[in-house]
């Protein structure tokens, strides 16, 4: 468990389709905004960062981890999860598509590292990785991440 954050159903969303990667970043981080984990400026920072450096937030096939520098407006460490049925393209060539988003609120180095380690452990576990892409309910998603 990450100190100060517990993944609950409110942080998990499912969508059929999202038209643009900008909207996908906005939607994926909306629970963090609603719950006061980040400010709007942080979400704008996530989008700016992709515009500036390209789609590097797509860290593995189908997986995107939108995030920004803490000083753009993060408040508390945490993350929100979003699955989109239809792949969202970050580039027109389709080489940077994502269906699974984890929006990160990066605060300070230590708690943030703990959160990332947790996420990477889950994503690197083949069984959990496959379960993520098959999950249809918020409950299943929480099981995967909290166990």
């Amino acid at each position, binding site marked *: 468990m990450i100190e100060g954050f517990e993944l609950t159903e409110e942080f998990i969303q499912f969508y059929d389709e999202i038209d643009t990667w900008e909207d996908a970043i906005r939607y994926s981080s909306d629970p963090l905004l609603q719950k006061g984990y980040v400010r709007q400026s942080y979400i704008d920072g996530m989008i700016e960062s992709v515009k500036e450096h390209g789609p590097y937030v797509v*860290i593995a*096939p189908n997986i995107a981890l939108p*995030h920004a520098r803490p000083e753009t407006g993060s408040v508390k460490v945490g993350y929100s999860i979003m699955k989109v049925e239809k792949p969202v393209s970050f580039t027109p060539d389709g080489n940077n598509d994502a269906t699974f988003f984890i929006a990160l609120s990066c605060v300070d180095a230590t708690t943030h590292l703990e959160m990332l380690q947790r996420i990477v452990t889950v994503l690197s576990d083949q069984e959990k990785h496959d379960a993520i892409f098959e999950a249809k309910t918020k409950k299943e998603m929480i099981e995967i991440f909290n166990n």
Partner: protein
Amino acid sequence: MLKVLAACGNGMGSSLIIKMKIEKVLKAMGLECEVHHASVGQAKAEAVNFDLVLVSEQLVKEFNPKGKAKIVGLINLLSEEEIRTKVEKALQ
């Protein structure tokens, strides 16, 4: 001692993921290493002090290919196999 720099857009996300993975991979390869992480901006300035710079494939173009450090671009940051293959090739 191999000096490695992991970089990403803002130095908070993928660079840390790369750091976690490369430390594991190099240890498995029996290589001693020191891994730092940074944003692309910092990394471009500091690359000269490292043997190896690991970044997302999308960021490779930001680095000088003729510099001292070997630039390795990664597609799947979670794949230790990809990291190992590419690092082995870069170190040859």
